């Protein structure tokens, strides 16, 4: 594909998108740019054609099975997008009068309430703009809590070694030292190690449950006790909530803070990287520290309700705002629509079928001879394979399998994460995929292993049929990309 810049020609102006030209006489030259910005000059048709064709060079949930572990790439009902895109929602300025915001604020308040119920927490703030920002909010609140009590030496965050990278990164950004807790052979946290680590320096523990190993942490109540007894608080990374929502609640497991990954559990499309939303829920101890704005409700004399945004004035101990305005409101609206369509029964049905699909896929792959990382355990909504056997015996790695799966019209599972299982493949089918699709995936895996035995070169050089069969590019050189960063288009350069 040529870039949009290659199609640019001086003198093309889409007058339909531009107000009348007018000379600027009111500003001194020092403020003005010397030459026009180097944007492409292309017609509307060229733009439409270029980006439409680019879109076709993507795998997506709308076009492909996308079993990317830890990412919950399920079907995102189109209506969520459609309704969040109503012009009444889209046209409102964030600082417009509260009155004009009653529809949005009521909706956000309802979402807050639903998230409280789902998590079993006492209060929720919707403001964090992604999971990682939700983590930040949670850890910052934990820090604020300790500091507010004058407990200054709690500078360590305990994090299992299987944790997602955002957990240690967040802890570090919040000024804490990360202490890794090992996992035992069954995929549970090593309790002895946890006991040894917990103490007066413990600010808290960050945990995903089910963990990123695709199993439910069975000793969660003991862990909570250990950490709480040591004076620490518990943070729940809610990225995996799809597996358990409606069946267990972080609050009931003893957590003090939790973030939701709205763009995983509550069917906001991921947009090729975002936006998401990472609302954060807290128990009693952390409630005063919630990030602002929180949506408040007031009962009116006439029996009606009035919704408003509570800022730091109303919540003086808040860790503060994390976004210029109210966060990714549009994403939250999508989640609201989804939850209203699903209801409580639908929510636990989601966990049921996400779990059924994962366990079925695991059972079939195990039966086909693949190495399941924790064969004696139930899968949750996802499960781990290890391709170590295939790597050793056929010289075909998890990466090679991943790339070759693309040729079979399956997006690749997450690979090499969590790192503690060698040649790992984390597979999450989600509840919206049919049995037929799972069976197709199993057949593809079996076929690739056969290829690995008979024609390993073909697997090692995959993909061959994407993005454009026979036209490539084929497998891209990541090392070259990092060694010689080529990050923007420049005239007369083709790498």
């Amino acid at each position, binding site marked *: 594909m040529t870039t949009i810049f290659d199609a640019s020609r001086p003198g093309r102006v889409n007058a339909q998108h531009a107000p009348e030209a007018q000379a600027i006489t009111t500003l001194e030259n020092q403020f003005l740019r010397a030459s026009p910005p180097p944007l492409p000059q292309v017609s509307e048709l060229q733009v439409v054609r270029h980006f439409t064709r680019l879109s076709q060079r993507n795998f997506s949930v709308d076009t492909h099975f996308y079993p990317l572990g830890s990412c919950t790439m399920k079907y995102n009902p189109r209506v969520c997008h459609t309704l969040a895109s109503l012009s009444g929602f889209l046209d409102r300025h964030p600082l417009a009068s509260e009155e004009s915001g009653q529809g949005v604020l009521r909706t956000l308040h309802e979402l807050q309430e639903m998230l409280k119920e789902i998590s079993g927490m006492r209060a929720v703030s919707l403001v964090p703009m992604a999971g990682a920002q939700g983590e930040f909010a949670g850890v910052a609140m934990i820090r604020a809590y300790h500091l507010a009590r004058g407990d200054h030496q709690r500078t360590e965050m305990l994090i299992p070694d299987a944790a997602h990278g955002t957990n240690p990164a967040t802890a570090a*950004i919040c000024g804490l030292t990360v202490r890794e807790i090992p996992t035992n052979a069954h995929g549970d946290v090593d309790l002895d190690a946890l006991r040894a680590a917990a103490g007066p320096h413990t600010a808290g523990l960050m945990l995903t449950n089910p963990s990123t190993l695709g199993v439910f942490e069975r000793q969660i109540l003991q862990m909570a006790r250990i950490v709480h007894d040591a004076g620490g608080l518990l943070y729940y990374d809610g990225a995996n909530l799809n597996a358990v929502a409606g069946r267990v609640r972080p609050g009931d497991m003893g957590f003090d803070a939790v973030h939701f990954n709205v763009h995983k559990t509550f069917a906001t499309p*991921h947009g090729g990287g975002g936006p998401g939303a990472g609302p954060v829920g807290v128990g009693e101890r952390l409630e005063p520290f919630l990030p602002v704005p929180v949506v408040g409700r007031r009962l009116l004399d006439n029996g009606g309700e009035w919704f408003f945004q509570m800022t730091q004035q109303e919540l003086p101990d808040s860790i503060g705002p994390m*976004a210029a305005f109210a966060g990714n409101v549009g994403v939250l609206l999508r989640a609201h629509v989804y939850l209203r369509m699903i209801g409580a029964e639908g929510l636990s049905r989601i966990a049921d079928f996400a779990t059924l699909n994962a366990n079925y896929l695991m059972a079939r792959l195990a039966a086909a001879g693949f190495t399941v990382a924790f064969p004696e355990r139930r899968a949750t909504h996802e499960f781990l394979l290890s391709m170590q056997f295939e790597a050793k015996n056929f010289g075909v790695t998890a990466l090679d399998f991943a790339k070759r799966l693309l040729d079979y019209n399956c997006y690749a599972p997450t690979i090499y994460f969590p790192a503690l299982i060698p040649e790992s493949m984390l597979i999450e089918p989600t509840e919206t995929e049919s049995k037929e699709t799972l069976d197709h995936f199993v057949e593809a895996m079996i076929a690739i292993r056969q290829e690995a035995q008979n024609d390993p070169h073909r697997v090692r050089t995959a993909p061959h049929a994407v993005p454009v069969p026979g036209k490539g*590019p084929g497998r891209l050189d990541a090392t070259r990309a990092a060694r010689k960063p080529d990050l923007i288009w420049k005239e007369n350069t083709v790498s």
Partner: protein
Amino acid sequence: MPFIPHTPADIAAMLLQIGAPNLDSLFDEIPAELRCPPLRLPPAMNEMAVTRLMRERAGSKPNGLCFIGAGAYEHHIPAAVWEIAARGEFLTAYTPYQAEASQGTLQVLFEFQTMMAGLTGMDAANASMYDGASALAEAALMAVRAHEGKGRKLLIPTSVHPLYRRVVHTLTRHQEIEVIELPFDPVEGRVSPSALNHYRGRGIAALVIPQPNFFGILEEADELTNWARREGALVIGLVNPVALGLLAPPGDWGDTGADIACGEGQPLGAPLASGGPYFGFLGCRQELLRQMPGRIVGRTLDAAGAPGFILTLQAREQHIRRSRATSNICTNQGIMTIAAAIHLSLLGPDGLARVAAACHANTLALTDRLLEIPGVTRIFTGPVFHEIALRLPKPSRPVLSQLARLGIQGGYRLEEHYPKLAKGILTCATETRTRADIDLYASTLTWVLNVKDA
């Protein structure tokens, strides 16, 4: 079952394969005492019912004619932008981890980076931050990292958006950064270069220059940049991307240009939407590349020499460096940047400049009209771009409420964050406001100010 494709026959066959008697048994590793009772959520609605509900909510109160800016601007978004950006293949993909199956998203991001680098005059740009405020916070952290060992002081004028300053506080406070607020000149409404002398030799790591600043006023970016350079401090330009259609880009400021440029991307194709999703943009000079947080797309080759696009420089990111990452950001604002790339392609350099010029002209026209109203005065003397701070003859809160009830979102109440700017409002007229709109604002405001109880 809504969104679940399993037939009774499927369920039976799958349980058989698993060797489980029923669905419940799949959860048998969860301690029994943790199982929660049925949740009390509102009853499920079908799509028809939820559609009706949300249409009611969306239409419950009119939004009114918008004259508010203050960090989010109503611009015309060509219809083609979201028709294409919202295509399922873009909208329902994940972060492009498998490059070969994500060339669409990756190439758009590469083109987006190029546009943002071009607009800001930087050597590189990342694939987005959450919003303008968090982008500024990340820029500050990045500057301090780059300044390693030479001091952790950030000089930030109070002419920077007050909410941005709070967000910077929230997001950087745990990293032992000293944020020093630099007061603006109360007459001009911008930083006076002479005021900087006070900070000479104080080991400032970075100076933030907002252009235009929160009051819509143009800072003397060249002088400020040169001062910072002399002090060995980095310069962070906080800019409005539509204004950059006309204004000198950070890369051209002063003798050397700024080091980092960041800002709110909302004006490039994102609807106002009560506050989000928007996106932050962040770019820098070549030397700072490996300090820049967030995702970056690069061009590379396959084995046959065909070019393609891939996420690169991931060694900076949390999934490789974990606790030593440049930032914890993972999911960013992907689709918004796709929209921005389409938006900018449709406008082109000429279109963007014309939009900027129209905003400027409309705001001047609005200013003229409002200043005709007795008692309305300009607060500052500095040159304005597309936003204006005005003082009303009456308290701003009731006046703005009254205007809103009459269908006019009149502006932002400056007292909210600047107690000294009593009765002050910040208002703007983008290219979407017509002369008739401006007249209506003026006549409505006249009426409101004349009413006794306002």
